[in-house]
């Protein structure tokens, strides 16, 4: 087991994880649990019951001011102005070349208050980029250190949190956020997640994080680490920055045209529009592989020995009992049903192109 590096950032739950048997690792500059009981067992708990994730490492920025919405509109691909109070959307920060700076969730808390949740690995970069483009009337408050963020995910998550909070969260629509209260503490409750299952993401003051975590655990939620989180998001076909997304990948190639507004102007819009009109040269696809070997990032995707793409993420899906992966593939080979091979350390393994939504229940 790796020993702790004092240079790493620690979430408000960092003390609790090892006490509960977690194996800790460095991730994006944070000291994080990668697994508790076992990745497969944890992933199964989320598919069948309820799992509990510490996602406090994700960046949380509050944008405040009457101009907050128009300001973010120019930085992101999705229509911020389409949001009503309490609604949220998946979106992208893009650079002038149409490449993805990060994928984010934007929550509209009120007409002059947005919450933006970003990837831990990009938090500093995103903060700098957003601040650089904000008018003086809009403030950015980084609430990452003062709060904790806990994901409760699985078919029984809504029931469990509703019971604990004495609040009917079944009424909260997907991609909406509401204020809740637990044990006297205010909690932001968002019906969002990264697992392909129903559930909520909770934001609470750092001082109460441990109490809430323990209460959720006691109520039956199974603690899960980053290993299970990655396995679940691959099964759900969700991109992960650094794998399916980076500053040289256009949203259209990544299959994210659905979060790119066709009507508004934003940084990189013209390049993205051109790719949309002309068609992307490569596309993000799902792959189902023969056998049980895991396709890992960087493995070549081939047709008759000719490289036509590259694996971005892969795992063994415990839900499907199959080896699955995502890959960028030259568009002419990206058709669903196409047969390709994945070169696994010199060994060509047959694979079929399928929908990326391998397991998706929401």
């Amino acid at each position: 087991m790796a020993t702790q590096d004092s240079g790493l950032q620690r979430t408000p739950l960092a003390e609790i994880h090892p006490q509960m048997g977690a194996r800790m690792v460095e991730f994006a500059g944070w000291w994080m649990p990668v697994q508790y009981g076992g990745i497969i067992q944890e992933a199964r708990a989320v598919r069948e019951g309820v799992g509990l994730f510490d996602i406090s490492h994700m960046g949380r920025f509050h944008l405040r001011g009457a101009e907050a919405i128009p300001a973010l509109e120019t930085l992101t691909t999705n229509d911020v102005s389409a949001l009503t109070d309490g609604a949220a959307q998946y979106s992208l920060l893009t650079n002038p070349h149409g490449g993805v700076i990060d994928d984010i969730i934007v929550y509209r808390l009120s007409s002059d208050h947005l919450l933006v949740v970003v990837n831990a690995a990009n938090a500093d970069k995103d903060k700098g980029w957003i601040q650089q483009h904000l008018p003086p009337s809009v403030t950015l408050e980084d609430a990452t250190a003062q709060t904790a963020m806990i994901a409760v995910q699985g078919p029984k998550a809504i029931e469990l949190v509703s019971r604990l909070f004495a609040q009917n969260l079944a009424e909260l629509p997907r991609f909406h956020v509401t204020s809740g209260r637990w044990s006297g503490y205010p909690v932001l409750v968002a019906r969002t997640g990264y697992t392909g299952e129903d559930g909520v993401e909770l934001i609470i003051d750092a001082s109460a994080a441990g109490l809430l975590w323990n209460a959720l655990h006691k109520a039956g939620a199974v603690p899960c680490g980053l290993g299970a989180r990655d396995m679940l998001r691959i099964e759900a076909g969700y991109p992960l920055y650094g794998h399916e997304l980076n500053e040289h990948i256009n949203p259209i190639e990544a299959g994210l045209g659905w979060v790119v507004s066709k009507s508004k102007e934003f940084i990189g819009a013209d390049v993205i529009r051109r790719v949309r009109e002309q068609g992307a040269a490569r596309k993000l696809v799902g792959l189902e592989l023969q056998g049980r070997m895991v396709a890992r990032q960087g493995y070549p995707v081939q047709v008759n020995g000719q490289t036509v793409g590259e694996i971005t993420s892969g795992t063994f899906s415990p839900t499907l009992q199959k080896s699955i992966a995502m890959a960028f593939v030259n568009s002419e080979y990206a058709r669903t049903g196409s047969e390709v091979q994945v070169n696994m350390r010199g060994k060509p393994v047959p694979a079929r192109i399928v929908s990326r939504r391998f397991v998706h229940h929401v």
Partner: protein
Amino acid sequence: MNIPNDLRYSKTDEWVRVEGDIATIGITDYAQSELGDIVYVELPEAGRVLQTGEMFGTVESVKAVADLYSPVAGEVVESNPAVTERYELLNEDPYGQGWLIKVQLADPTQVENLLTAEQYAAYIEERRKA
């Protein structure tokens, strides 16, 4: 960490149990715990002749893929059919039901060159600190 005293070990985290001129080989508890959930194992067919240090297969977990190296020289007489049916055996019982191959030793005295349990424990400790 479970490191049975009656086995010998390699620096590539295999264990060896010798009975007569047959060596049973598997991966250590440390190796399975570092790998995490094992989802696939590739093993050689009986009859293959292995040199000391030769790669004889791979173990694949959700997290990583690891090559298997033979700590001894000899001919493979059997690979464990149970582990290719139930890969979890490698995580659950690495020194028992999770054994990988049996090798007819070219030189049964060779195992004396391998690490003892005590030496292997020290070697794990060394790597942890590194």
